[in-house]
């Protein structure tokens, strides 16, 4: 933990993510207005003391919608990465531990999935399902596990030959003990780094899908669909497009900083060099 807080990148990322998470969690208390309340007397107002980020085409308070949008974006990002990491660990562990034909089968499947242009794959699935945040999480999760699988497999393959694992095996340790006691705990660092970076790309994908109208649906606010509304009014209401984009940028930046910082702090090879 100390190594993390001493790394300036990781610390900056942690602070950014912490602040945004707090805003998302306490959205209902912080938000000055109901995010879905339509007010015909306050349509497209520029930012002011009352509406610090202005109002949208239906007179809804943008700041309040941004706060609730943060909930959606973070939730989708974290759950999607949870799904993909879980699949990646299971498949990667099986492939790296048992090797042989199971390994070949799983890795060929990974090759196939990696050869299909990612966003096309997501789009092909999502367009056939009713758009809801649950479907988006599942689809992003199911289309982004390949990297983790390769990572876990590589870790397992290299760890399996190490003395402490061989010793444990010689002492008669069962498969599950070897996997959960020795191999998995020692592969955790790269898994954590890749999932933190994964959240960043999941947040980007979700906002892109919502922007195309295939993600989170109105009236539920998400940064992507606030931006879609903003596109309509871009000529006379810049605040509708500026703030959601900045929010996505800062969030993704936070996760990337934390991920890279963690990699530096936890990986003895790179931290020595600095």
């Amino acid at each position, binding site marked *: 933990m100390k190594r993390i807080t001493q790394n300036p990148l990781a610390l900056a990322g942690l602070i950014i993510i912490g602040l945004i998470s707090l805003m998302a969690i306490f959205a209902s208390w912080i938000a000055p207005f109901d995010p879905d309340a339509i007010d015909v007397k306050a349509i497209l107002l520029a930012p002011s003391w009352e509406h610090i980020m202005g109002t949208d085409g239906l007179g809804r308070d943008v700041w309040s919608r941004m706060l609730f949008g943060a909930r959606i974006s973070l939730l989708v990002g974290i759950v999607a990465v949870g799904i993909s990491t879980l699949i990646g660990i299971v498949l990667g562990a099986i492939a790296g531990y048992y090797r042989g034909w199971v390994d070949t089968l799983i890795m060929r499947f990974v090759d196939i999935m990696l*050869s299909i*242009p990612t966003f096309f794959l997501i789009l*092909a699935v999502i367009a*056939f399902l009713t758009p809801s945040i649950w479907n988006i999480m599942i689809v992003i999760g199911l289309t982004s596990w390949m990297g983790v699988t390769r990572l876990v497999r590589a870790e397992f393959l290299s760890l399996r030959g190490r003395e402490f694992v061989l010793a444990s095996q010689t002492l008669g340790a069962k498969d599950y003990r070897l996997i959960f006691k020795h191999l998995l705990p020692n592969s955790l660092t790269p898994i954590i780094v890749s999932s933190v970076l994964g959240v960043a790309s999941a947040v*980007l994908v979700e906002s892109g899908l919502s*922007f*195309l109208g295939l993600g989170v649906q109105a009236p539920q606010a998400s940064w992507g669909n606030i931006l879609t509304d903003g596109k309509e009014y871009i000529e006379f209401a810049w605040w509708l497009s500026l703030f959601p984009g900045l929010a996505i*940028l800062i969030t993704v930046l936070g996760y990337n*900083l934390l991920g890279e910082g963690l990699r530096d702090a936890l990986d003895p090879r790179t931290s020595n060099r600095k």
Partner: protein
Amino acid sequence: MLKYLLKRLFWMVPLLVGISLISFLIMHLAPGDITSTEASFNPKTSEESRQKLRELYNLDKPVIVQYGLWLKRMSTLDFGHSFASHQSPVFWEETDAEGNVKKGMIQEALPITLLINVLSLALIISIAIPLGIISALTQNRLPDRSITIFVFIGFAIPGFWLALMLMYWTGVAHNWLPISGLHSLGADKLSMIGQWMDTLKHLALPILISGLTGLAGISLFVRNGMLEVLHQDYINTARAKGLPENTVIYRHALRNALLPLITIFGLSIPGLIGGSVIAESIFAIPGMGKLFYDAVLMRDFPVIMGILTIGSALTLIGNLVADLAYAWADPRVRRGVMS
């Protein structure tokens, strides 16, 4: 070498079959087909005529039979015809009985997307490599720090938002660049060069945006590669024998640091093709991304399958070319490939 090439090409076939099977299953296990979208445009469509349509397109048969039929047609490179778009051929042009030529949908869309991607790659290479070198040579000093900040922002910036902002700024506010489509009104009256310039002007923003968002990763990669190479023994040797610093850096270090870039470019192809969806729909450019997006909304199965297959085949070919180029550039790898 030839044996390796043949082996790799041979492996592509089962991979492509696997890719198409997975794409086919995903498409057909989800609810809805072309008849449900056509019906929504024309509420008078009866259940009976929908059934007829399904029979016409073989949609009433079990999925695996449909896949077999598709694969059989594909074995003769017949991508079929679009359900939605007036029976246009999906892949390549066809001449009908009356001698009219119908252009293929992918035939028209692919060159546009490729042009955008090739030009933005050129932009990325010409900016990212110098940035990465500067960053590595000034490690942890001001230039490196500022480039790193720029890189992190480049990683995090949502491409579609940047597109929207630049579109507003250059197109709406200042009217410098056209903001949608491929050709200006009346562009067909211009000379050949004029038409090219017109198209390039329309593509300037999309290219700029995919270049700017792609820059970050490559420049970070060059930086780290350079740093790693600069710590190698042969660099010390080169310095020790009294070579000028410029020769050491640009002849010895840079060449080795840039080698892995070949692989990175090979790997980035699916992302580039996939990333074209949002940019092309924002700027209304009729490329692969826009074609795919429209096909997905219409549940136009032959077009979706065609694009997924071509896109995946391009990815596989890209990876193969990258590996070959790497082997060509690096004798150490070449020996591994040959044996």
